[in-house]
Structures are given as structure tokens and as C-alpha cells.
């Protein structure tokens, strides 16, 4: 594809997404598929182990699937996960891109305890690396964390969370960090090349950074999810203080993926569906609202993934400024979400990956047709898989979703 064409295509895709986010009717319903890493690896003909441990192959697999399954949103230009070391080094922006990521080879070097990888702890064809977190802060250490959160992460949490860094200052630890940095250089190079490849394919470069709600951070990286839930009962004041300290730092905890991004701040939520209203409105929502509103005031929109069933808190989204961004729903019915949030919040989602596993393409098309009939009028809607589409999904069903949007998602020719 020649350069002008891809620029024009990227412009159209971006205008489409932007119109929906601004609660308007675009030319057609924007589409996002959320193909998981395993799907991309399988389509390209490699194992997920190869995908995660050979950046060049991962890059090619992402480019291949982005070519063969075109959508409006670009695939996330990453094939690793956020790293604890990156958080510890948040005052060193010059190395943020290298320090901020954890990849398969870095997992080998640093021997972190919070992730599991295909071909290592799990089978080479398992659909993705998995984030499992860990208890790297003890229940009685909240005060230490609160008095100096990032110092605590650097000096206490990081050594506990990585076998190779258990003895800070040891030759082993220093060698591991230097090796990880060298690996990081290779990774950044691969990601830059991937981003260029996606731009050539006519994708807008969308993602500025990913951030999280303080309580999710505490659950993921410090206390485990069951651990933080117990803390909410046993030492709520300490949890609250830790959240307050973290929210002040949130803006500097971003993971910068690419400097050319124009799009959205991505906020995946974990504990939202776990919490009772009492806990949600005290420990979660004020912080999420704060993050979204601060970005909104700077002219940046957020894309929030409301994991699980968010039904109980749907109405509270109306407390945000109108047009704040995009709400991706997993198990909350997007029809209901669209009714409740009409004219206020762009609603995203609607296609459960489980449907795609076991339907015929015509059933998929029919499902999308019916859904769009209800939710597309008035705009402010983005069709998306409600969560990652796994490797075993028949590709013809993924194609059926794309075809259905072309057929039934057009507002004006």
C-alpha cells in the first residue's frame, strides 16, 4: 500500500473512533477485535513460546493479523507486560521505555515471581503469558510503603519479586539488570519497528499509556487480590492512605509505549466487580474518577475496561464529565449500558468471544446485525470483543464480525 493511502486510511480510522468517542455518528461503527497473543501466534503459524521469546516473530505475527483481520483500532504495540522495576524507576524517564516492560527473555534473566510464560512455567502453546502477582509487601508494612512508596518498591518489593535481584548490589543482581537492559533495547527496537509497520498498514497510532487504579496496583503487585480484600477489612485506614499516596503519583506512573500516540489512556480495571458498594465508593471509584477527570481536564480521553460485571455501578459513570472517554464492558450488557449512558459516555463491547468459539459465521453475522440495530443509532458506540479472542476461535467467525460491520454498521455511504 502506498504511503498516501495508508495516511488517508489512518485518518479515516481515527476520525471514526474519535467521532464515536465524542458521542457522534461516524461513517460507520468503529471496530476493535482484541485478538489475544495466542490467536496472533497461531495465525502466523508459531507457538506462543516463539511469539514471546522472539521479538521479530511477535512483530511479524502482529503485522500479519493486523493485515488479515483489519479493524479501526491498532493492535497494542507490545508483547510483554508492565514491570515493577519500571515503577521503581519512575523518576528516570530517559530509561522508562526499557525499564517499564517485562518480556519473556527478561523473565528468564530477572526470574520474577509475578508472571508465568509459555514454554517456561506453562505449556509452549498456552494462549498468553499470565500475570499472577504476588505478596511482595507484608500486611504490616503499609506504613513503610506510605512513607516512601517508590523507595519501598525499589528497595524492598523489587528484591522480593525477582529471584535474580534477591541480593541488591550483588554481582548477580547487577549482571541481571544490565542483561535486562540490553534485552530492553532489543524490545524497544522491535516495538518501534512494529509501530512503523502498523502505520504503513494505515493504522492510527493510538495508545499513549496505560495506568491503573491504586487499589488494583496494590492487589496486583503488593498484596495479591485476596490479600488486599482482607486488608480492606482488617486495616482499611492503611489501605486508604496507601491509595491516597499512590493517586498523587499516578500521573507519573504511566507506561510510555510510543511518543507518536494521539489516542487514549488505557485503564484496565480488576477489582471493580469484586467490591461491594461500600468498598467501591470509598476505595475505588473516587480514585478512578480522579484519574479520568484529571486527564479529561488536560484534553486527554481515557479508555476504561470495566472487567467482569459492572452492572451495580453503571449509573455512577454519569458522575464523570460528559464525553470523558470510552467504556469497554465485558459482562455488562452493552444494550443496557448504551441506554443508561446515552449522550454521555461512548460504549464499547458487545461480542463475547465465547460466542465466536462455537457459532457459524452466519450466526455471528446475525448476532451482530441484531445488536447493532439496537445500539448504533445516535452514535457513541464501538463494536468490540468484550474480552480477548483466544487462539482456538475459528478465524472465519472473526471475519464474520468484520463483514457484519461492513454490512450493518454503516451510518452513511
Amino acid at each position, binding site marked *: 500500500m502506498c504511503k498516501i493511502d495508508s495516511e488517508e486510511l489512518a485518518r479515516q480510522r481515527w476520525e471514526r473512533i474519535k467521532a464515536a468517542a465524542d458521542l457522534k455518528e461516524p461513517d460507520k461503527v468503529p471496530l476493535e477485535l482484541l485478538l489475544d497473543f495466542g490467536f496472533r501466534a497461531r495465525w502466523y503459524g508459531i507457538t506462543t513460546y516463539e511469539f514471546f521469546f522472539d521479538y521479530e516473530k511477535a512483530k511479524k505475527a502482529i503485522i500479519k493479523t493486523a493485515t488479515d483481520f483489519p479493524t479501526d483500532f491498532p493492535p497494542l504495540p507490545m508483547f510483554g507486560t508492565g514491570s515493577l522495576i519500571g515503577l521503581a524507576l519512575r523518576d528516570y524517564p530517559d530509561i522508562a521505555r526499557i525499564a517499564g516492560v517485562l518480556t519473556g527473555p527478561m523473565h528468564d534473566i530477572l526470574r520474577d515471581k509475578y508472571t508465568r510464560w509459555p514454554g517456561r512455567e506453562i505449556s509452549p502453546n498456552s494462549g*498468553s503469558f499470565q500475570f499472577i502477582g504476588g505478596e511482595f509487601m507484608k500486611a504490616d508494612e503499609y506504613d513503610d510503603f506510605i512513607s516512601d512508596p517508590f523507595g519501598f518498591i525499589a528497595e524492598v518489593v523489587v528484591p522480593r519479586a525477582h529471584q535474580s535481584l534477591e541480593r541488591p548490589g550483588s554481582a548477580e543482581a547487577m549482571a541481571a539488570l544490565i542483561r535486562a537492559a540490553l534485552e530492553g533495547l532489543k524490545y524497544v527496537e522491535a516495538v518501534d519497528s512494529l509501530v512503523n509497520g502498523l502505520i504503513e498498514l494505515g493504522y492510527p497510532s493510538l495508545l499513549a499509556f496505560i495506568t491503573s487504579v491504586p487499589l488494583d496496583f496494590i492487589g496486583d503487585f503488593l498484596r495479591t487480590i485476596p490479600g488486599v480484600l482482607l486488608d480492606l477489612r482488617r486495616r482499611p485506614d492503611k489501605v486508604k492512605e496507601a491509595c491516597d499516596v499512590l493517586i498523587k503519583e499516578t500521573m507519573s506512573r504511566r507506561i510510555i509505549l510510543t511518543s507518536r500516540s494521539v489516542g487514549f489512556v488505557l485503564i484496565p480495571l480488576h477489582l471493580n466487580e469484586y467490591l461491594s458498594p461500600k468498598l467501591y465508593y470509598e476505595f475505588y471509584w473516587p480514585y478512578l474518577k480522579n484519574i479520568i477527570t484529571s486527564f479529561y481536564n488536560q484534553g486527554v480521553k481515557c479508555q476504561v475496561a470495566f472487567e467482569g460485571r459492572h452492572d451495580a455501578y453503571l449509573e455512577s459513570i454519569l458522575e464523570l464529565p460528559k464525553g470523558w472517554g470510552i467504556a469497554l464492558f465485558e459482562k455488562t450488557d452493552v444494550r443496557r449500558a448504551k441506554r443508561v449512558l446515552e449522550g454521555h459516555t461512548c460504549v464499547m463491547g458487545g461480542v463475547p468471544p465465547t460466542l465466536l468459539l*462455537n457459532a457459524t459465521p452466519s450466526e455471528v453475522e446475525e448476532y451482530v446485525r441484531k445488536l447493532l440495530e439496537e445500539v448504533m443509532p445516535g452514535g457513541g458506540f464501538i463494536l468490540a470483543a468484550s474480552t480477548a*479472542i483466544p*487462539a482456538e476461535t475459528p478465524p472465519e467467525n472473526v471475519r464474520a464480525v468484520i463483514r457484519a460491520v461492513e454490512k450493518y454498521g454503516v451510518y452513511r455511504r
Partner: protein
Amino acid sequence: MSLLDEIVSAFADLDEERTINLVKEALEKYPLNEIFDACRRATDIVGERYERGEYFLSELVYAGHIFNRILELLLPRLERERVSILGTILLGTVEGDVHDIGKNIFKAFAEAAGFKVIDIGVDVPPQKFVEAVKEHKPDIVGLSGLLTLAIDSMKRTIDALKAEGLRDKVKVIIGGGRVDEYAKNYTGADAWADSATKGVKLCKELLGIKE
């Protein structure tokens, strides 16, 4: 109110320390079966409150934690005294998925309800499920998984049970945040649950146990 009733109400209200103290007291006065029965009644109430939207997952996790603490207190006696069980559940997170929060909550609720649960861990390959079914002869096989990729593993596990002629000898329930009716049909399971309490209820139904 009897001591056992007090346990039921303290546990159902998730008053951890009070529940533990009451159980310690009851240990000296009641047969194990009756203490278990109090736990079952309490977790039934927790389940009802969850279904009604009064309790959320955070409360289920907490109730599971309280039950595990009770279980620790009961263990020494459990080795000596027989308690009646509703049936045996073989439980594991399927191959490729290493998440266990959902599995562990389900396990606590199933045990509190009176099931014997054999937990074979996470990332369990189909063949290991097959061998465990042969060894333990469970009434129910519970396949857990958090990620969407787990759904295909669930199918492969059930296929492996079929291939070994074991599928008709057990009931199979799939569980996790992302399973649904589509996933049930795809995998060939008998039931699906996206919450621990619903899962336990369905296990009882699968075995024809009346509430």
C-alpha cells in the same frame, strides 16, 4: 440463641473474630457434624445475600477465608471423626491457566456445603484430570479457568474424559469469570457457573440433592 445459631449469624455477617471464638467454644461441646452444619447454613446465607446483590465477590472471598480458618481449627478432629459428605468433587484449573482465586473460593464454599473436594492445582493437563478421575472416582469434575483461553482447555479435558469412557461416570461443571452458556455448549459440560455460590448450588442439583 444456641451457640451453633450464633456461629451461623456471626459467620453469615462475616464477623471473623467472633466466628472463630464461637467455633473454638463449640469444639468442646458439639459433634463435628453439627459444627459443619452450622458452616453450611452460614455459607448458604452468604450465597443468598450474594445472589440478591447484598454481598459481592469481596464478601465471598472473605467468607472463604473465614471458612478456611474454621477448617484449620476442625482439622485435628476431622482426622478422628467421620463426617457425612454430599459427594466428591475433583477440582482443578485447566491447562494453560495458572489462576486460582476463583477455584479457591469455590473450594471453600463446596467444602462448607459438605462436599469433599480434591484439589489438583492449576495448569492441569487433560491427561492428569483423566488419571485423577480414575484414581479418586469423583461424582463431579470441576474445571476452573479465568482466561478465555481456558475454555478450549476445558473442552479438551472433557474430550479426554470421553475418549477414556469416563464422561458418563461423572458430572462436569465449568467455572470462572468468562464461562457462559455458549462455553457450556462448546465444551460439552453439564453446567456452568460464574460464581462460587452458583457453582455449589449447581453441584447439588447435578447430584439430585434437595436444598
